[in-house]
């Protein structure tokens, strides 16, 4: 039996950053909003015992429970796709706040270049810089058009930073809070970078540097540099997340109904409009239909694409014909870098998720690629996030991986080594895409999302080049032993890399070129919106959430406008 509930103005599928932002803005505008979240309620009071590396960072206590749902994966379409049985490469979110609960909080804006990547690349290097198998396209918005939304996200989250990056797009306003504290490691990085004529600046941070009240009246506390940040919730309410900002804002309006243990299994459609969603109460097993005037997918990259595919909305991408857009442009990131081993001891165990210094001199098109066989680059940073003892056992090259020498070296270098890492931008390729798995199913009988993905030649070239630049900085910092990252071969889903998955539901300026328009409104179905990093046409050399937060504000504006006037917003 399915129970049909009273209709509402807006329903969001998932309540992380994107669902929370949409809920806050729409409910402030007077719309009745229901937020359906498959996971549980949680908040700052649940994070008091969070300083537990084993439970949270190793056994993934607050992340997606894969026994219910996972993705399947293969490197290319000739291989048999198999389920990702344990979390590894990325750590998906579940529960109020989504992965914005256990994120680091590095909060960047993508470069102006990112939004017009195709045009600017062709202009500077001619049309043949990249092989046509790379599906490069401009976004449906420019940086300048998105600037007010960036500003809004940063003010909501209280981002701490300094406006010192010469390559950044223009800002209308300064950062709402000052940068985080300087540490000896970061000072050393800054000095080395300057010696190399680079332009270091403090990582923009959602680990807020001082007590801050945001425009919605929510208070975010001051970061304690406790070192249990990445992969953990913040016991101080000092790391901006949906559950301490936009969710309370939405609840205060009285227009937001937040339901937990509610797993959406289908988007319901009649004619060329959606009518609501079907969900399962994961505790009772009951099925519900939640009718709504507007449906918003805010369920992260994978489930946004999966729900569209399952509900037969839009045309799935076919890599053999090149037709279809849903599932196309799936991108990840690559992690060039260099490890350094020092004689001095550092307080590596102290830190915060976003405590760091970075340079953008080798990011975007900030350097000349004429003689290079790749485009774009990555931001190169030293971050002091709080080195964890189980997960971090650094040893110089040629040390055995176990036994007496391993023990001695890993203990010695735990406080005498660190890495300079980069987030390498990833370009879409026609062979890399998402589709529905034909064999494996989730706990609700629905097919798993299937990834067909491998690193490309572009990735490999970029990785090699940027690793060498990271090693240059490490050398200038005076490391005794420097180990640049080994060259990459095939993408491997086992080791953690980043939870920066993008693409699949790309934003585009024409219906032929993507899934949603620049309000994240579906091209084929005017009352359906989908917002996630899935909207990115390629992945940049930064963390995604700053740009994603901006898109969520843009999406909310679109929904509010649509609710007044209907029709296509572009």
């Amino acid at each position: 039996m399915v129970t049909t509930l009273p209709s509402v103005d807006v329903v969001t599928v998932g309540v992380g950053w994107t669902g929370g932002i949409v809920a806050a803005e729409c409910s402030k505008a007077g719309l009745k909003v229901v937020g359906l979240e498959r996971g549980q309620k949680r908040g700052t009071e649940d994070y008091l015992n969070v300083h537990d590396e084993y439970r949270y960072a190793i056994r993934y206590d607050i992340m997606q429970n894969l026994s219910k749902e996972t993705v399947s994966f293969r490197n290319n379409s000739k291989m048999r796709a198999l389920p990702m049985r344990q979390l590894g490469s990325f750590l998906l979110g579940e529960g109020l706040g989504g992965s914005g609960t256990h994120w680091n909080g590095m909060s960047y804006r993508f470069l102006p270049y990112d939004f017009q990547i195709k045009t600017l690349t062709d202009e500077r290097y001619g049309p043949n810089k990249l092989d046509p198998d790379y599906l490069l396209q401009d976004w449906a918005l420019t940086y300048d058009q998105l600037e007010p939304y960036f500003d809004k996200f940063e003010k909501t989250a209280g981002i701490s930073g300094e406006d010192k990056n010469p390559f950044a797009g223009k800002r209308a306003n300064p950062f709402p809070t000052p940068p985080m504290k300087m540490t000896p490691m970061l000072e050393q990085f800054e000095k080395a970078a300057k010696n190399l004529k680079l332009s270091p600046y403090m990582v923009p941070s959602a680990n807020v540097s001082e007590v801050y009240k945001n425009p919605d009246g929510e208070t975010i506390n001051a970061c304690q540099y406790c070192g249990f940040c990445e992969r953990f919730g913040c016991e101080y309410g000092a790391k901006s997340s949906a559950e301490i900002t936009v969710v309370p804002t939405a609840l205060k309006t009285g227009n937001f109904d937040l339901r937990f243990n509610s797993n959406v299994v289908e988007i319901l459609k009649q004619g060329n409009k959606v009518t609501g969603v079907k969900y399962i109460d994961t505790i009772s097993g009951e099925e519900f239909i939640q009718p709504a005037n507007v449906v918003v997918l805010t369920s992260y990259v994978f489930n946004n694409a999966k729900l569209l595919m399952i509900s037969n909305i839009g045309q799935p991408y076919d890599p053999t014909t090149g037709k279809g857009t849903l599932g196309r442009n799936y991108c990840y990131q690559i992690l060039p870098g260099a490890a350094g081993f020092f004689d001095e001891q550092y307080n590596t165990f102290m830190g915060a998720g976003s405590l760091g210094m970075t340079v953008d001199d080798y990011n975007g098109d900030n350097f000349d690629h004429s003689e290079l066989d790749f485009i774009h680059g990555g931001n190169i940073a030293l971050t002091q996030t709080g080195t964890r003892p189980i997960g971090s056992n650094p040893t110089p090259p040629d040390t055995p991986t176990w036994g007496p020498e391993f023990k001695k070296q890993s203990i010695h270098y735990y406080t005498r080594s660190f890495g300079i890492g980069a987030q390498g931008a990833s370009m879409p390729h026609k062979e890399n895409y998402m589709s529905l798995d034909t064999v494996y199913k989730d706990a609700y009988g629905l097919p798993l999302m299937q990834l067909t993905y491998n690193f490309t030649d572009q990735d490999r070239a970029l990785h090699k080049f940027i690793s060498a630049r990271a090693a240059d900085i490490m050398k200038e910092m005076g490391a005794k032993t420097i180990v640049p990252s080994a060259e990459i071969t095939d993408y491997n889903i086992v080791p953690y890399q980043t939870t920066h998955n993008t693409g699949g539901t790309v934003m585009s300026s024409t219906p032929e070129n993507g899934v949603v328009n620049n309000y994240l409104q579906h091209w084929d179905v005017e009352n359906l919106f989908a917002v996630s990093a899935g909207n990115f046409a390629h992945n940049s050399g930064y963390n995604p959430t700053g740009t994603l937060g901006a898109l969520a504000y843009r999406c909310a504006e679109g929904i509010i406008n649509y609710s007044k006037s209907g029709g296509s917003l572009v």
Partner: protein
Amino acid sequence: MSTENNVSRRDFLKTTGIAAGTLVGGGLIGGLVGYNMNGKGTATLDHGNGTTNEATGSPKAKMFFMNERDFSVLSNATERIFPEDDLGPGAIGLDVPYFIDHQLAGQYGSNSKEYMHGPFAEGAPTQGYQSRLTRAEIFKQGVQKIEAEAQNRFKKGFSDLEGKQMDEILTAFQKGEIQMSGVTSAFFFILLRAATLEGAYADPMYGGNRNMDGWRMKGFPGHQMTYATQIEDAKFQKIEPNPLGNH
């Protein structure tokens, strides 16, 4: 919030002698007595789990392993991976074998948060864990295979071998040279190594990292509320570790 607690707890440990292991019950892991590590003598078998509540209960009871031989193989294998040295205790001294035993009896051992639906197929290494076996099943089989391999190569039980001989066997496992069913020996070794480090450095409430000595060796202060006043200091901070549940 926790400084006072900290100091008094430290003093408590000193005065009661628990840290030095004088509250020994003895006998519980008799199977390990006589275990010889690099000819350095027997491993210490004293009690005291380094958390509060030392006087009651025993964290040194087995929840998973059913006989002393298997447990002793596990213990000696972990000790080879993370041996006692002049820096401090090894896996046995840190109670790592008990940590692993307890983990295998729970959610970790039964893979309750992993996707365990078939069909199962051998994948490429880039596709990760594809075994139908749970970690508990892999450990049980793996430990028994280690013992069988010792009998096979040296006509002795694993726990009676010289350190070098043990290493030879563990290396063969690491290289995937030992035939196991439903899983490669290389994968079992990866699990064993990872679990050993987890037991050495997890919060002592899980039964390993006894007396927080794993943390102490590494210079990791465990659970501290804040570093806001120290983070800018150039000097390395030696901070007495603090476990969870102490604040």
